[in-house]
């Protein structure tokens, strides 16, 4: 899912910085995914747009296009106040974020071991 080369270049091959920012992503994804789920349940479109935007911005630093695209779909629905299929969109995004976290974690472990 992630573009390893782009990601390492983005962090100047600085694994310490990558690990530190990754921990921020891990914390942010937990917090904002929960907030997004609640916003969708409440049909709070302003919050839906905001939380999806934050997830999109944070994940864009890890060059996982699929995740940012999925977050963008939800952000757009929040902006235009469309609730169709939002639960499913959220499910897709949530799975992709979990996958992203797992891939970056493996990448850091692998690079550290190398």
């Amino acid at each position, binding site marked *: 899912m992630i573009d390893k080369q782009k990601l390492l270049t*983005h962090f*100047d091959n600085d694994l310490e*910085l990558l690990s*530190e*920012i990754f921990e*921020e*992503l891990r*914390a*942010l994804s937990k917090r904002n995914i929960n907030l997004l789920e609640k916003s969708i349940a409440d049909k709070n479109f302003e919050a839906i747009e*905001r939380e999806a*935007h*934050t997830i*999109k*911005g*944070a994940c*864009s*630093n890890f*060059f996982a296009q699929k995740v940012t695209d999925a977050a*963008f779909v939800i952000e757009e629905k929040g902006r235009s106040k469309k609730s169709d299929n939002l639960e499913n969109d959220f499910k897709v995004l949530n799975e992709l974020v979990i996958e992203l976290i797992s891939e970056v974690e493996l990448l850091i472990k692998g690079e550290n071991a190398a």
Partner: protein
Amino acid sequence: MKKKSKVLVVDDDMVNGKYLSKQLLKEDLETEFLSDGTKCVETVMSGDFDLVLLDVIMPNITGVEILRKLRETYQPLELPIIMVTARDETDDIVEALNLGANDYLTKPVNVQIAKARVSNQLMIKNFYLSSIEKKKLETLNAMIITYNHEINNPLAIAMGNLKENKDDLSDKNYNKIREAIERITDIVKKIDNINQGTVEFESYAEGSLMIKAK
């Protein structure tokens, strides 16, 4: 030792904000990260920052609103502000640039571009500050020339004449004493005019100005 430039990174997104702060630290810049946009104006006012990197979309207050508030106090040359936006926020970028943002970056921020843009804005700001400093030095120099040319030298002559003739109050010397006192009166008037700011710059010699009382 040269003072490091101080950059404030404002972004509710901890990932992006911390990433930018850490990357700019590598450029020998002092950075501070703020995730709460509502505290931005207050932080800038109390922090002696040289540049602000400002996210556009934030909860409670947008980057554009913060920009508008900061521009009420700081001109673009005094405090460069670079907006950080998502690629799809073209309208916000245009609005921010119209409101006095100096430049913008899109997320994910390419750190080489960010460093270059920050460096450009700091260079422009430093050039502006040194031009103000140069103007101050020119004024100081002009004051020194004024002091010597308009005040010190004429005063020395008048005081000399007065001293030379003060003990002989004959008719012959009366006019000399009166002229010396009139000169001293003129000099006092000039000092008063300079104090009141009714002055103009005049070329004194090549490359030098003097302040002339109007």
